[in-house]
């Protein structure tokens, strides 16, 4: 099959570019640790801070600067919807939905999750900069979807 010389160069160049992109993505995931959710738990986990409960949300301190959040999402609120932590804290979120699909995105961070009934959504993030971080539901969940939000308040030490 005949392929024009310039077209061959163009295809090769595009292929090389995509390979470089893929390597960069692999690097950011494996070395920099920007990870996606994987297979965690289909049941409510018993994590370091204790038993998780779909009815009641909580925030518990595991050790100085280390927190665990058991969050419940449902139409149209998060519980807890306000989380206070000191700057520099590392927080692990476990989020469950008891009704339909929801989303969870914290502004200005890499935390973004789908919350799927029957699955546990999990993400860890270290909040170095003090301030208020808005989090919103980013999956359509009915007529009041746009009310579903909350805040992580990172206080100066």
């Amino acid at each position: 099959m005949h392929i024009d010389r310039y077209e061959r160069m163009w295809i090769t160049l595009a292929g090389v570019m995509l390979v470089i992109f893929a390597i960069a993505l692999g690097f950011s995931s494996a070395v920099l640790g920007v990870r996606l959710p994987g297979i965690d738990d289909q049941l409510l986990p018993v994590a370091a801070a204790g038993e998780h409960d779909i009815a009641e949300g909580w925030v518990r301190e595991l050790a100085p600067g280390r927190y665990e959040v058991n969050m419940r999402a449902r139409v149209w609120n998060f519980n807890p919807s306000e989380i206070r932590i000191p700057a520099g804290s590392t927080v692990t979120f476990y989020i469950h939905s008891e009704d339909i699909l929801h989303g969870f995105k914290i502004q200005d961070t890499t935390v973004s999750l789908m919350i799927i009934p029957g699955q546990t959504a999990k993400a860890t993030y270290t909040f170095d900069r003090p301030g208020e971080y808005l989090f919103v539901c980013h999956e359509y969940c009915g007529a009041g979807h746009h009310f579903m939000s909350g805040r992580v308040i990172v206080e100066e030490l």
Partner: protein
Amino acid sequence: MAATRVASQSVAGADAYVPPETERKLSLAFIGVGFAHLLVGVLLGFLQGLEHAGIDLYAYVPLIRHYYQGLAIHGVFNVLVFTTYFIGGFLLFAVGRGLQRPLITAGWGWATFWLMTVGLLLVDYTLFTNQASVLFTSYPPLQAHPLYYVGLALIVVGTWLMTVISVRTTLAWRRENPGQRTPLITFGALVTLIMWTAASVGIAVEFVGFLIPWSLGWLPGTDPLLMRTLFWMSGHPIVYFWLLPAYVTWYFMLPKQVGGKLFSEPLARLAFLLFIPLSLPVGFHHQYLDPGVSEGYKAIHAFLTFAVFMPSVITAFTVLASLEIGGRARGGRGLLGWVTALPWRDPSVAAQLLGMVLFSLGGVSGLINASFNVNLVVHNTMFVPGHFHLTVGSAVALSFMGVSYWLVPYLSGRKLFSEGMARFQPWLWFVGMLIMSRGMSWMGMLGAPRRTQLGAAPYFLPEWEMPAWMTAIGGVMLTISGLLFFINLFATLWASKKVEERGEVPLAEPVNGQLGVVPGWLDRFTPWVTATVVLVLIAYGPTLYRLFSEMSLTFPGLRPY
């Protein structure tokens, strides 16, 4: 390896072939119903853009109770109804016109049309009565009225019947014309329909096996992650079902419209065929943030999504080279002189070229969405509609409008109502889309969630103000452009005068001589369908096996809208 000589698409004297009247009417019926729904979709888009800028007009619109009901109709009408109906009309025409023989049979074609239209009426009814505001993705446990799922299922069955009609007609043609290669437009139509038929298995299992019985109360509940996975098995390839008909015209028709030739027939065929195996095993790039799907398989789908970018890379070169042949033949000189020499005053050409320009931006933003952990930043933000309005809302919509500018007069035997309006319309769409998609993408990078009534959100951030206004202003321009198109289209059908001489169907011929032969494997489908099955088993097999074996139908439906 079987090889046949390059044969030009138009045999001397056969150019005059006009499909029989019943087929022309069938295509017009499909195209008319499709655009009528797009009109409603566009008007609702107008409301959505203004809503983001804080102007809520929903209280003044009959039937539409709230933003999300309008959004559900906007999405379903624009990308399911308009696309599928236009594609039905255009591809069935392409099959018959390419083969220069009647379809087997046009009666089946009409049965398909009416079956789909019964389904469509159910969809229309449930959407307008706010009983199906579950949006395009219909993720359970969000539940719609059972008739909504039944209606959509009937439309999908209609697309399968289109495949049956097209394949049977082609097989009959092959018996009548042994040793000849499938004509290009027919070949493109077949690839599109075969790919989609294979891809629609996921959504068919989801709807018929689970959602319909569940919404009727015959199943105790649903498994949200499994349903989501089945949905995206079809939900990503469907974008190529929309895109490939645009490629049919870009590769095989537009070059003729600009006085050029198809630069490389073998690569054009290869690009089309690659879409069959590569369209399917990529759905996890919509599920990067889903718990319950392993990171490893997400990475495999990320690589395969990069792979499906390659046939579009080939397309960019081959189509531009084909256009350049035309531009140079028209006297274009220098590095870019051939671009300005193209017949931009032909509305059909301008619409398609502008669609291509926007698609280059849409391709890049699509690559960003597909980029594994980069998706953490843009997932479910306004960046995503910013992306797909450049693809399905530009490359596809503008190309379908462009095709309609010659196809509707051809099919109806009537003159285009207003050439001047048609000349202006694609440019207004182009500028409006640049502004709107830029607004959306920007807002998304600032964290604004998509599919959200942002104007009413208590958390609306001040930095979203400016891009929200861009979204609204672009949306207004798009609406005006859309209205200009619809007025022209329906005035052509109902108020324009009949013409004696039907125009010609633009069929591009491949450049001869330098190419030699096209290998036989570029005119066969079986190897590509086999490759599809193998790739899907590798990419989806283990995850689907696990999800099905762990399946628990426990979650009841909810209708919070």
